[in-house]
């Protein structure tokens, strides 16, 4: 169905189309994965999970995740973690399964024990809808997550070497410099 010749022709056309848009950002976008199955690009990693939902789990999850979307002022409780770039929940396959995807700094298993003691209620509240979820404090939790994790074929990260803290700091510095520059001209 897909021949190598056809693919080569397609790729050649893409190279031609992009020749006026050379990759200019100078950043290394390569990624790799180790035994944890998730991909890592620079300082950023991803976790993608596909798993079965309990009966009624889809309705339950949608009610729960509303609270993660931000209050009246748009603030989200997720920001307290300090490493999460994004979280995605998609109910798929006739509302029987969950696709969960997240991008974050560092490794998820490095901090899983911290989540288990700091915010166990939150973790269990969200993932109780998952078939077989043993509970965040269960010693088998790491193996359970590894069991439902899938390895992505590919992944693009625009700024692989900026953590959430770096981005926040840079935003503050830029704002601060603008403020100082403005104030410097005030008489």
């Amino acid at each position, binding site marked *: 169905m897909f021949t190598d010749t056809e693919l080569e022709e397609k790729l050649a056309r893409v190279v031609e189309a992009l020749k006026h848009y050379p990759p200019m950002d100078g950043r290394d976008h390569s990624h790799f994965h*180790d*035994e944890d199955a998730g991909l890592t690009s620079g*300082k950023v990693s991803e976790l993608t999970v596909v798993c079965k939902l309990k009966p009624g789990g889809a309705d339950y999850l949608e009610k729960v995740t509303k609270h993660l979307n931000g209050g009246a002022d748009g603030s989200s409780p997720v920001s*307290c*973690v*300090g*490493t999460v770039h994004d979280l995605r929940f998609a109910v798929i396959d006739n509302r029987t399964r969950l696709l969960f995807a997240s991008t974050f*700094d*560092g*490794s998820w298993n*490095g*901090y899983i*024990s*911290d*989540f*288990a*003691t*700091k*915010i*166990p209620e939150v973790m269990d509240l969200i993932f109780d809808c998952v078939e077989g979820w043993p509970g965040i*404090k*269960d*010693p*088998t939790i790491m193996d359970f997550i590894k069991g439902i994790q899938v390895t992505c074929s590919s992944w693009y990260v625009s700024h692989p070497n900026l*953590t959430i*803290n*770096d981005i*926040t*700091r840079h935003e503050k510095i830029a704002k601060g410099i603008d403020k100082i520059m403005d104030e410097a001209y005030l008489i």
Partner: protein
Amino acid sequence: MDHNSSRFDESKVTLELDQIQSIILRSRPIPYFGTVVLVEIKDKEAGKTLIKNLLPEVTTSVNWHNSNNGAATIAISYKGFIALGLPKETLDSFPNEFKAGMAGRHEKLTDYGENHPDNWQYPYKDNNIHILVNIIADSEEKWKNKLKSVRDKFEDISGYTIIAMGDFSATEKVTNAFGFRDGLSQPEVDGSGVDIPPGYGRAVKAGEFIIGYPGEAGNIDESIKPLAFSKNGSFVALRKYRSNVHLFNQFLHKNGKTPEERELLAAKLFGRWRSGVPLALSPKADDPELATDRTKINNFDFKDDDYGRKTPLSCHMRRMYPRDTKMAVMSDLNMHRIIRRGVAYGGVPGDDFLEDDGKERGLYFLGISAKAMQTMEFLQSEWGNTGNFINHGDEKDPVIGVVKEDEDGVFTLPKEEGGRVRIHGVKTFNTLVGGEYLFIPGINGLKWILDQE
């Protein structure tokens, strides 16, 4: 004598102290003398004979708070357990990190550059370390006596090779090779009988350090099978460091004009003065008087020091145990604690030592916890070789961080009057020359090994 002696309450003991090896609960003596012995065994029978012979020498945690007899510890690596022919069910139940060994986990440990296992010394490189025997005592005489009685147990049996023996020691000052007192802050283990005075925090649940007891999350981890073997055991991360004291002193000389400036900078890198007095309690100068009270010099926090003006956020002590520091990443302090039984070797050359003399000195780091592998990997990758958790970008721990050849090591020094300077030219002041993950079985565990077919 031990600083803990006044803080023991028999009625609070819930752990099987007579089954738990002494290294887990007993502090290093002051001063200390000792030897690390690394052994390779030929086969199951030879290994069991050796353990059987050594068993009477192994000391337990009974009277951990005031015992001053010479102590001996046995710890066994995954390769060692394979050589001992443990049942498949038991071997399979060990954590993956333990099975992979320390060299196999170098990526997760951020052991790259000069710390990479390819650059390790014999016998750590491509090692066959099966059994570690550690001997320690509070006098030269007791050490030699204990070492002799242990060595006698090796006589008349065969089928083993002693692949390395290294002596270590420290004076009354108990300093590392840089001349800084170390090992001061240790987690207290709940159920050990420790009686913590009000205002000194709380003991950490025993399961975090000793297998077979509830941990911080409230449950008992029974993953290593059977519990009859694993109970009262713990893991130890052995990491042998060579201290590059001349590079450290060169850095101080380059960035400090007077001895006072150099001493202050050195304290800013460690977080404590040479005596062990923390900057948090004495920010301007060392305080020899305060240094004599080991309880006092560990009773402080950082609540009035958010910017690190007294104790830099990036210094070794604050990174490895941030106390009440406002961290930029959600972290649970009690999940990343490790019992440190590190010991120094090779002497202390002094602060005027500026050129490499080719002699080796440094530290055998021994980090003990029921999750020593995970904790070690976390400390190395999240709190050691990055600054993200304190919003310091790529900056590394100035003491244990590894600076690659083409890299410029930086240390952020907040100034007392406000603002900050970034000091360049930080080097790898401690180079990892080898290491291994080992299990410290309880006495019950050692006997269980002997009972196997």
